[in-house]
């Protein structure tokens, strides 16, 4: 991995990779911290230059930025009043018109506003669930790769068990047992989707730990925590980042699926929840397409955008993938 970080505590231990070393000559006088920052900047710039070459990744990123902007500015553009049923401006299930570009829902609320407002929950749940999932996966993967022995055997068998469990069924079971809230949905998705990450991270950890400098760090008295947090984690971080981006898309889909199956919090507006509302209102059989299509497309587009980004990030960080492209 070319983005290996320089541990700040061991000032002279790492010779660094050649491009960073070139920059280091100019900045030698500015001390190790500035040096590290400069190297990070350089690698970020390199990353971006590489990323820009992936057209699909750029399209995905643009879509994501757009959705993020829409979600973040929603309090000013539509406001939380859009979800209010008592102040609903329209009549129930009106078709698209000038006043309501995407029509109204069963309460007479503006669907465009609801889709915008719903993006906040869908994106939030997607992000948090993915972070939780990847965090669990990373901790388990790194410890299993580091400690080996009976601990790794036990923990990897647990991982395998989760890997063969049908994820959605497990999530449904969890969401049914726990009370209906956003936290439950995040937890249900998070604790069911981590095994792939754990497997990937463990493999990378094994590869990193076989390198000579780890042995050197051990010889210099580096403990388990030091090795895992200062040497292994920075090296598996790119993998974790790529994995997070990819898991977000499946987390958003899972959130929509759970909400659609009626396992989400019914008082919160989300894309999956909108689909569930539409189904319960009988919009499918009555042909009220404007109730179903916008949230459905929004889910598909965001999931696709995250996947494209994740793919591009993965390809940049792992040049060997470039051949397959």
């Amino acid at each position, binding site marked *: 991995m070319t983005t290996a970080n320089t541990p700040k505590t061991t000032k002279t231990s790492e010779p660094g990779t050649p491009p960073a070393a070139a920059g280091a000559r100019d900045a030698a006088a500015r001390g190790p911290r500035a040096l590290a920052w400069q190297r990070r900047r350089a690698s970020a710039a390199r990353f971006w230059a590489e990323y820009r070459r992936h057209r699909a990744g750029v399209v995905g990123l643009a879509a994501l930025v757009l959705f993020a902007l829409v979600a973040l500015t929603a309090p000013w553009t539509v406001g939380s009043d859009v979800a*209010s*049923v*008592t102040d*609903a401006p329209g009549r*129930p299930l009106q078709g698209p018109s000038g006043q309501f570009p995407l029509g109204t829902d*069963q*309460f*007479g609320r503006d669907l465009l506003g609801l889709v915008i407002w719903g993006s906040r929950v869908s994106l939030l749940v997607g992000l948090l669930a993915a972070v939780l999932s990847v965090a669990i996966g990373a901790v388990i993967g790194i410890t299993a790769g580091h400690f080996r022995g009976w601990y790794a055997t036990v923990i990897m068998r647990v991982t395998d068990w989760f890997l063969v469990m049908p994820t*959605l*069924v497990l999530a*449904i079971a969890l969401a*049914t047992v726990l*009370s*209906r809230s956003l936290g439950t949905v995040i937890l249900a998705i998070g604790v069911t989707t981590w095994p792939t990450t754990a497997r*990937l991270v463990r*493999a*990378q950890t094994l590869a990193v730990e076989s390198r000579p400098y780890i042995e050197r760090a051990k010889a210099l008295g580096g403990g388990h925590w030091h090795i895992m947090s200062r040497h292994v984690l920075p090296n598996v971080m790119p993998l974790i980042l790529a994995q997070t981006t*990819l898991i977000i*898309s*499946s987390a958003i*889909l899972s959130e*929509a*699926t759970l909400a*659609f*199956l*009626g*396992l989400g*919090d*019914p*008082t919160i507006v989300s894309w999956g929840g909108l*689909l569930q*509302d*539409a*189904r*319960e*209102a*009988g*919009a*499918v*059989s*009555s*042909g009220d*397409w404007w109730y*179903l*299509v916008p949230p*459905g*497309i929004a*889910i*598909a587009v965001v*999931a*696709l955008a995250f*996947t*494209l980004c*994740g*793919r591009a990030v*993965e390809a940049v960080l*792992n040049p*060997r*993938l470039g051949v*397959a492209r």
Partner: protein
Amino acid sequence: MNTHDQHGRGRGRTTPGRGRRRLAAAVGAAALVLASGLATPAAAQPARAAQTAQTAQAAQDGKDDKGGKVLTVAVAQSVDSLSPFLAVRLVSTSINRLMYEYLTNYDPKDAHPVPALATRWESSPDKLTWTYTIRSGVKWSDGKPVTAEDAAWTFTTMMTDSGAATANGSFVGNFAKVTAPSPTQLVIRLKKPQATMTALDVPIVPKHIWEKVGDFSKFNNDTTFPIVGDGPFILTDYKPDSYVRLKANKDFWRGAPKFDELVFRYYKDQDAAVAALRKGEVSFVAGSPSLTPAQAASLKGDKNIHVNDAPGRRFYALATNPGARAKNGEKFGDGDPSLLDERVRHALFMAVDRKTIVDKVFQGHAVEGQGYIPPRFSQYFWKPSAGQELAYDPAEAARLLDEAGYKKNTDGKRVGKDGKPLQYRVLCHATDPNDKAVGKYLQEWWGKLGIGVTLDCLDNVTDPWLAGTYDLAFDGWSVNPDPDFVLSIHTCGALPQTPKDTGATDNFICDKTYDELYAKQLAEYDPAKRAALVKQMESRLYDLGYMNVMAYPNAVEAYRTDQIKSITTMPSAAGNIYGQDGYWSWWSAVPADSSGSSGGSSSTGIVVGIVVGVVVVAGLGVLVAVRRRATADDRE
């Protein structure tokens, strides 16, 4: 003491099976979602509908293999038991109605008791002995005659065997002795006068079959088919959550049904049932509990479909937990203590705009709630006087809360003396969209008052309900022509014996004044005087503020006119078809001459097409990504 009427259990809390069903449906849908490449799950529905259509064996176009006329009804509620001693759900008791004749039936026009198995009945001057004359010449479907002995055995079994008393035991609680002096005479001795003796909704079962049954609490009457009965239809086959098949009883004493076969086919998804109706796969859809306004509106435009929108027999209410307790005085549950204050309950009552609920949630397919019994039962319908009415008045509600000591704090939340803000848990049925919709309104109305609302939507509300671990709950019961049952569920006598037992009580109300009135009306044989007493009970219940009847939802159902020429509604002027107090609808249904079926609506096709398209695109994207990633991982 109370005459527990199983039809009353239309939609209450007796739905433990729904949870399992829901999960099964969810898992099924989930599997389909996964199979279709993980995307917009809306596509799962048509797929499921198609699957149901393939697996169900009922004939297409209203004809079976032999050319007989088949009436197919789409249902969603699971059968709890086919045994008349155990069945309490609406679907099961309706099927029992078709399988077994009762002593009396209700007239389809105005629901007064009419002869069925009993041709005449009279009470002794002391009102304690009732003599029924049993119709002669009626036969069970295995050829044996139906006698008074069958009826006497049925009642006596319910009096002596607690397992057989599960569903209808309360009817016979006041019976002293039931005898059959002759094959056509049934004599019932009562301990106390009982006003419901012409409304005994107990299926009479054949003694020669049922006396072989060992444990009535376990026997579900689904082992040998066809099931011996004497009703208008004979049950020939049953597969749980798949179908219930009945064939016409050609020897039925009132006349043979016009259809040769009646099939209740399961559609767990209401949209799928509506699609099946459009395609002509089913002749009738009742919806659970009724079609949505959008579905009704779109079906109204179809040429061959008639939408029946009639005043329903249900009330839809918000029940308050008055502090759960058992007959032995033990208190349990954790209902909010602030709800024990009548002023708080009235304030909550006044902060609910019932008119908006009818206009917006039911979109006019309901009548604004007033008293406890729906206006359809005009004899017992009561509405509050102007001075008594708790009309929508948020300002007055706020004043009442202030007066009760729940003042707003700086955050705008109402705070009790203990310093804790008022936050109510509202129990709602996850399977009922109306609960969730009204819940959203409650959250905003009560939120403006400064009261927090947590909507607890569960598939299985029975457990918290019986444990009393809720503050308020969505509630609803189907009301019978004789209101005794729905009145009885609010008496102290209906409370459970101990916290561990299950009582007939609805929400643990126990009020002395109400109980006295209840006992009086049960012993009153004069209809006018009894109705006056019932109205007093409703008035008392209203004043207590524990039951906020928000609406009387209409029965919104639809059938194909090219398959069903005519069908009796009850009441005949403007009434419902599914879940009647009697077998009139299915017995009277006349098949249409031609039974061609038209294709599905094109607009649905477009929607499905768009959704499927989106699914395919998203699915492909994910699939490609996953594949590419998989090769990458392999190399790693």
